[in-house]
């Protein structure tokens, strides 16, 4: 018992510095900093809102022409764009995708949005107001999670990929759906009553929205297949049967290649056409 006290004291003394761990000072820092500190993030947040508002106005004028004043419509015309809904739910729209919702009822009992194209959602958890994403053919119901709905290939099927959490995926007018959890993918062939579970074709289907490739013991072939498709350049490895674990940002392919080459001590070649 005594020994323990002495050990605790020795631990404290090792790091003790007079004036450190000042509770009051730290408290002032946090409570006082709330206006100024998270400037960077705030800026991003507000710019997101500003962009959303701008798009709302544009969308409102072009699509609804003033007749339906409460519907907010978001469109991504120039490329991937990010928006926050009133409850801080994050949407990432791929090029050409649209999302609309009724600003008056959103968040009251249910958070319903309509979408077309490929959209990634990071839904703020709220047990009292389930999130309902409806596309032309499908409907996905969630409480709070990250997932992607891909209906960009209008003629074939709707794909839903869940990055975390749990969702119910069903045909738009169907009664029953399937439950998808982390890293699961569901496919609804248009005209079918029920979607079916499938394995995601690639390890990171939502890399375009999250900006990250995450690999856990993934075979190098699979990694290169994904990178080839993502960047549109065929990539080949000098060695096979190798596995890689790591996280890469999507912004620079050269850097990813260099890192993999160094880590696995292999050579990766780009096919020159």
């Amino acid at each position, binding site marked *: 018992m005594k020994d323990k*006290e002495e*050990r*605790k*004291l*020795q*631990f*404290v*003394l*090792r*790091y*003790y*510095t*007079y004036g*450190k*761990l000042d*509770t*009051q000072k*730290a*408290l002032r*820092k*946090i*409570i006082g*900093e*709330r206006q100024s*500190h*998270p400037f960077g993030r705030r800026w991003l947040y507000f710019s997101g809102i500003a962009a959303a508002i701008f798009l709302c106005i544009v969308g409102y004028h072009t699509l609804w022409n003033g007749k339906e004043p409460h519907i907010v419509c978001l469109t991504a015309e120039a490329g991937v764009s990010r928006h926050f809904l009133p409850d801080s739910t994050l949407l990432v729209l791929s090029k050409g995708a649209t999302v609309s919702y009724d600003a008056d009822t959103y968040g009251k009992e249910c958070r319903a949005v309509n979408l077309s194209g490929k959209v990634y959602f990071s839904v703020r*958890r*709220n*047990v009292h107001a389930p999130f309902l994403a409806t596309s032309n053919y499908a409907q996905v119901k969630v409480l*709070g999670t990250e997932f992607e709905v891909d209906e960009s290939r209008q003629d074939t099927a709707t794909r839903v990929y869940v990055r975390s959490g749990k969702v119910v995926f069903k045909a738009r007018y169907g009664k029953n759906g399937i439950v998808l959890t982390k890293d699961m993918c569901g496919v609804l062939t248009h005209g079918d009553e029920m979607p079916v579970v499938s394995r995601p074709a690639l390890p990171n289907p939502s890399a375009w929205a999250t900006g990250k490739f995450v690999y856990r013991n993934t075979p190098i072939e699979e990694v290169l297949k994904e990178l080839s498709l993502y960047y549109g350049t065929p990539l080949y490895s000098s060695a096979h049967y190798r596995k890689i674990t790591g996280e890469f940002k999507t912004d620079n392919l050269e850097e990813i290649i260099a890192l993999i080459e160094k880590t696995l001590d292999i050579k990766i070649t780009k096919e020159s056409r």
Partner: protein
Amino acid sequence: MRIYQSHLGMDINTKIFREHFIQYYRPLCLFALHYLKDIDDAEDTVQDCFMELWRRKDRGVDASGLKSYLYSMVRNRCIDILKKDSLIDSNVQPSDLEEILSDEECEEWAYDEARMWTAIDALPEKCREVFLLAKREGLKYEEIAVRLHISVHTVKNQMSKAIKTVKAGVQKVYLFFFG
């Protein structure tokens, strides 16, 4: 491993936030110190956690589970920091100067250690100096007397006073806050 609870009811207002901050700031810092072994890193980590809590306090966090929530939050961050630094050793555990501690043990120790810290902080300046020289630097009473130009008798007095205060600080029922 990761524990997140962000959806629980009951708003925590500024008052509850303040109370929790004052009560757990130091213990959490010492808790983090058992992982990170750097006082500034530990303090930064704990402040980041409180900052995050403060930012979303209006969205509601369960006040009754806040303490364990804070501890898991700090633990997760420490583990993240340590894992980022070393890709090879993925088994992160807290330890004191001698051996590895379990998470529960660490939480309990941090609590006692925070009281010791507070007690040392509260000592009069000269008394604290004597105490640190003796306990931390391992100097003999005579050496301290020479260094500080005081008599050995004074050193003895100061030491017994310091030891009493620190011991009392630890044993005392936890009534005062870590101010």
